[in-house]
C-alpha cells in the first residue's frame, strides 16, 4: 500500500457485508444471526449458498441500476468514492465455504471501487477455521482476521454458550498466525456463573480467569484485541436466565476492577487503548471500525446491514437498513427493484444531527472527537458549537482539559453520550 493512500484513508468510505449464520446462537448474543441448523431445516440444506446468491444478485443490480448504485455509493465529484476497508461480519462468515468468500470479494471488487491497500477483515469462529480455509481466505484477499475467542476458560465458554473449547481457540490462533499478521481477538469480561442444578450457584468470572486471556494475548503478540464488558441484552438467553434468577453476575465493583486491570495490563504491554473496548499495537487499529466513530460514510450489504451515506448536497446524511427478514432478503424476481425494497430509513441526519453524532461517537475513542476533522467535515468549531457540553463534561471529570476521556469517563461514558442526544 502506498503511503499516499494512507494519507487519504480517513475520508474513504467503508464497506460492510453481513453474513447472519452461526453454528449456534450464543447466550449473550443479540446480533442479527441465526443458528445454521435451524435455517437449514426451514430453508433447505443450501441456505448459506442461497444467501450468497441473493447477495450476488443484489450486487449485479447495483451495477445495472443507477438509482441503486447512487444510493449505496457515496460520490467524490464525478467518481464513486474509493473504499479502503471491507469488513465481512456476522454471524460467523467463516462458516461459509471459503470459495463463497472468495467469490464475494471478487464480486465486490467488480462492483465497487476498492483501493489497493484496503483493509479486508473477515470474522471467524475458532471452531470453523482450518489450515485450508485460512490459506484460501488469504489468497482471496482477506488481510485481517477477527476471531471470537471470548474466554480461555472452559467453564466460562460453556456459560457463554460458545461452541469451541479453550484448546480449540489456542490452536485456531496458532493456525491463523501462519497466514495473517493482522489479527483481532474478541474477548468478553464480567462473564456470569450459571446456577447448576446440583452444584448450586457457580461463581462469576474471576480475575485470574481474565488474566489467562491477557497473558495469552501478550505472549502471542496479538496486534489487536477487544474486551467487551458483558451486557445482558433483552431477548437473549442470558436475559431469560437472569429473569429466572439463574445468572450469577459479578459485582459491579469486581467487573470494573477487571476492566481497570485489563486496561493497565495491556497498556503496560505496549497496547494502545484507543476505544472503550478496543486495544491495539501502534498502527494496528481497526481502520474499518474507526469509520463508525469518525463519522465516515459506509455502505452496508446483506441482511439487516446499515448504511450511512450522504443523501443530498446540503449535507444531510441517511442511515438506512436493509431488511432484517431472511425470507424477504432471499426472495428473487425479475423486477429490478426487488432487491431494493427491503430498505428502511432509520434516520435522516442534518448537519446539526451529524455534529451531535460525531461528538457522541467521537467520545468512544480515548482521544475524543478530533477538532481538526470536525472543522473539515462541518466547517465549524467544535469548541464553539459545543462549549456548554464540553464545559459540563469537564466539570464532572468525564473528560479532561484536553477533551480526552478520563478514567472516570470510561466507566460512565453513557453520561457523555447523553450530553449529545
Amino acid at each position: 500500500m502506498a503511503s499516499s493512500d494512507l494519507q487519504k484513508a480517513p475520508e474513504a468510505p467503508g464497506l460492510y457485508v453481513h453474513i447472519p449464520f452461526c453454528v449456534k446462537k450464543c447466550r449473550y448474543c443479540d446480533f442479527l444471526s441465526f443458528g445454521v441448523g435451524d435455517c437449514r431445516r426451514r430453508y433447505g440444506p443450501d441456505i448459506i449458498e442461497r444467501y450468497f446468491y441473493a447477495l450476488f444478485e443484489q450486487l449485479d443490480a447495483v451495477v445495472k441500476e443507477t438509482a441503486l448504485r447512487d444510493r449505496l455509493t457515496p460520490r467524490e465529484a464525478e467518481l464513486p468514492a474509493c473504499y479502503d476497508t471491507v469488513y465481512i461480519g456476522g454471524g460467523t462468515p467463516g462458516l461459509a465455504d471459503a470459495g463463497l468468500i472468495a467469490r464475494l470479494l471478487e464480486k465486490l471488487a467488480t462492483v465497487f471501487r476498492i483501493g489497493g491497500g484496503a483493509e479486508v477483515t473477515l470474522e471467524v469462529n475458532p471452531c470453523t477455521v482450518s489450515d485450508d480455509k485460512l490459506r484460501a481466505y488469504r489468497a482471496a484477499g482477506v488481510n485481517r482476521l477477527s476471531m471470537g475467542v471470548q474466554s480461555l476458560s472452559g467453564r466460562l465458554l460453556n456459560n457463554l454458550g460458545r461452541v469451541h473449547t479453550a484448546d480449540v481457540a489456542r490452536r485456531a490462533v496458532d493456525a491463523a498466525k501462519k497466514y495473517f499478521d493482522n489479527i483481532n481477538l474478541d474477548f468478553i469480561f464480567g462473564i456470569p456463573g450459571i446456577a447448576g442444578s446440583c452444584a448450586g450457584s457457580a461463581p462469576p468470572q474471576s480475575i485470574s480467569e481474565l488474566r489467562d486471556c491477557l497473558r495469552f494475548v501478550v505472549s502471542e503478540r496479538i496486534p489487536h484485541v477487544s474486551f467487551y464488558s458483558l451486557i445482558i441484552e433483552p431477548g437473549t438467553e442470558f436475559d431469560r436466565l437472569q429473569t429466572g434468577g439463574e445468572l450469577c453476575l459479578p459485582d459491579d465493583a469486581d467487573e470494573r476492577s477487571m476492566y481497570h486491570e485489563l486496561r493497565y495490563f495491556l497498556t503496560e504491554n505496549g497496547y494502545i487503548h484507543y476505544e472503550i473496548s478496543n486495544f491495539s499495537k501502534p498502527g494496528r487499529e481497526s481502520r474499518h471500525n474507526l469509520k463508525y466513530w469518525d463519522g465516515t460514510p459506509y455502505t452496508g450489504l446483506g441482511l439487516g446491514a446499515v448504511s450511512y451515506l450522504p443523501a443530498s448536497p446540503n449535507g444531510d446524511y441517511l442511515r438506512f437498513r436493509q431488511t432484517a427478514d431472511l425470507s424477504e432478503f432471499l426472495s428473487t424476481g425479475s423486477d429490478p427493484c426487488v432487491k431494493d425494497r427491503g430498505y428502511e430509513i432509520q434516520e435522516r441526519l442534518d448537519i446539526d444531527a451529524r455534529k451531535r453524532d460525531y461528538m457522541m461517537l467521537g467520545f468512544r475513542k480515548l482521544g475524543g472527537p478530533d477538532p481538526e476533522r470536525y472543522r473539515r467535515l462541518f466547517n465549524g468549531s467544535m469548541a464553539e458549537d459545543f462549549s456548554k457540553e464540553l464545559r459540563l463534561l469537564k466539570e464532572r471529570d468525564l473528560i479532561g482539559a484536553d477533551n480526552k476521556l478520563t478514567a472516570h469517563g470510561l466507566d460512565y461514558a453513557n453520561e457523555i453520550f447523553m450530553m449529545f442526544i
Partner: protein
Amino acid sequence: MADRDKIRNFCIIAHIDHGKSTLADRILEKTGVLTAREMEDQVLDNMDLERERGITIKAQAVRLNYKASDGNEYVYNLIDTPGHVDFNYEVSRTLSACEGAVLVVDASQGIEAQTLANVYLAIDHNLEVVPVINKIDLPAAQPEAVRKEIEDVIGLPAEDAPLISAKVGIGIEEVLEQIAQKIPAPKGDETAPLKALVFDSYYDAYRGVIVYVRIVDGSVKRGDTIRFMSTGNEYTVTEVGFFKPGTLLPSAEISAGEVGYIAAAIKDITDATVGDTVTLKERPAAEPLPGYKAVQPMVFCGIYPVDGADYDALRDALFKLKLNDASLTFEPETSQALGFGFRCGFLGLLHLEIIQERLSREFDLDLLTTTPSVIYYVYLTSGEVITLDNPSNFPDVSTIEHIEEPMVRGTIMTPKEYVGNIMELCTDRRGEFVNMDYLEETRVVLTFNLPLNEVIYDFFDALKSRTRGYASLDYELTGYQPSKLVKLDIMLNGQIVDALSFIVHEEKAYGRARKIAEKLKDVIPRHQFEIPIQACIGGKIIARETVKAYRKDVLAKCYGGDITRKKKLLEKQKEGKKRMRQFGNVEVPQEAFLTVLKLDSDN
C-alpha cells in the same frame, strides 16, 4: 311549565358496574332526547375520568318527556349522583332533590355492599325506591333469585320489578312506566316564599355560575333578586331554565317541584355551594332547608410542577378547576426540595387523585405531589395554638405542649364474614371499636372511631381489598382528640427532603419509617455514589437503607448498525433522568413521592 302532578324527580342508584350509566343512556334514547346516532355511550358521565373509573364525580341532570300508557305526558328529571365516600355530602344533597330512586341490581351478581349503602341512603331521604333487575341477557343471570334477595335483604317489594337488559334495550319501557306509576309527584307550595336547594353548580364562561336547583317552594324567574341563605349574598337572576342533554333550555320561570338551573352572573362558584338554600330578597323564606354544611377540605397536600417554568400554568389550571369545584382550595407555598407550588385542600384522597389526574390530563402538567396531611391543632407551651396542615411547619418539639388530631366516626357495612378482617384493619389504623349491628342475618354495620389521618392513607382501598369489594364506608368528622404525633423526616444522602416529611403517630412511626426506607431504596436509581436513606424523628434515626452505587454506565459496543438503536436506548435513559428531581446531588424520580402516598396499598 309542567303540571306538578306530572313531574317525576328521580335518580338511579346501583353498585358499581351494575349498569347505572347504561340504563341512563337507554332512558335518554327511549324518550327521544337523543337519536342513536347522536348518542355517545354513557352521556351522563361526561368526564373522561368518570368513564374510565366508572364513577360519577359531578352530579348531572337532564329533563325528559315521557308519554305513559295512561295517556298522560310526564316530565322526568333524571339526576345522576356521585358515588364515592369523598362526595357523600354531595350525594345526600342530590338525593334531597328527588322523590324517587331507580335501584339497579345485576341479575347475575345480586345485591352488593354499595347497593345496600345507596338504598339506605335513599330511604333515609324518604325516596320511593323502584327496583329493576338488569343484565337478564347474561347467561349467569338469575333474575328470580335476585328478586327474592331484594325482598329478603332490603325488604322492598319486588314482585313486579322489571326484568331488563339496559345493554340490549330490553324492558326499558317498563322502567319508564313504573317511574310514572310509583314515584310520587313532588309536593311543595308554589305560592310560598322561594326555597330552592342547590345540589350542584358549574362555571360557564358566558353566564357565570350555573346553579343546579330543586325548587321546593315558590318560584323564580328572570329579573328576580335571589339570596343565598348561608352567605346572604344577593344576585339578579339573568336566566332560569331546564336541562337538556349537554345543553341548557331557558324558560320563563321555574317553580315548586321542578329541577332546573339559575344563572345570575355569579363570578365565584364558592358563592353557590351545594346544600345552600336560595330564596328571594323581596319575600325571603323564614328558614333555610335543613342539612346545609359548609364543605371543608379535609386533606391537604403540596402540588408542584416538575418543571419550575410550569408554575404559572399550574396556577391557571388550578383557577380553572376551582371554577367548577367549590371544595378545592389552594394557596401558594414553597418547598426547599420542590421549589414553588401550591398547598391544596381536598374532600378526600379520591378528590385529590382526581384533581391531580385532571391537572396532568387536561392541562398536560407534570406534577409532584407531597404526602397528604390533615389539619392538626398544635398547642404550644406558650399557650398559643397553631393550625397545622403542612409537616414543614411543624414547630420545634421542645415548644409543643400537645397535639390534637381530627377524628371521624366511620360506619362500615359488610357481609359478616369480613368482620374479622375489618376489625384487624381498623385496629391497625388506631381505630376504636364502637358498635356492631346486624342488619339481617348475614350483614352487619360496624362503627369505629378513627383518626382521619389514618383514613386518608388509602384506607378505602385497604378496606375494599380485605372485603373483596363488599364493604362500604362512610365517615363524618366528630372532633379533635389529643394524640402522640411526631414528624417523620426522610434524609437522602444526609439531607432532609421536606416534601417527603409527614406527621404520624409515635407508635406507627417505626414501622412506617422502615417501609418507606425500603420502598425508596427500590425506586431511587443507583447513582455513582452510595446514597444512605434515613428516616428520623427529631435528630434520631429510626430506619436506614442504602442505595448501592453503580460503578459503570457504558455501552460496551457501538458499531454501524447499532448506532441508531443505541441512540434510542440513550434517549430513553436521558428521558428518564429528565423526569427526576434533583435533591443535592441525588436524583429522585416522581415515583418516590407516590411511594410514600401509597405505602400500604400492596399489603
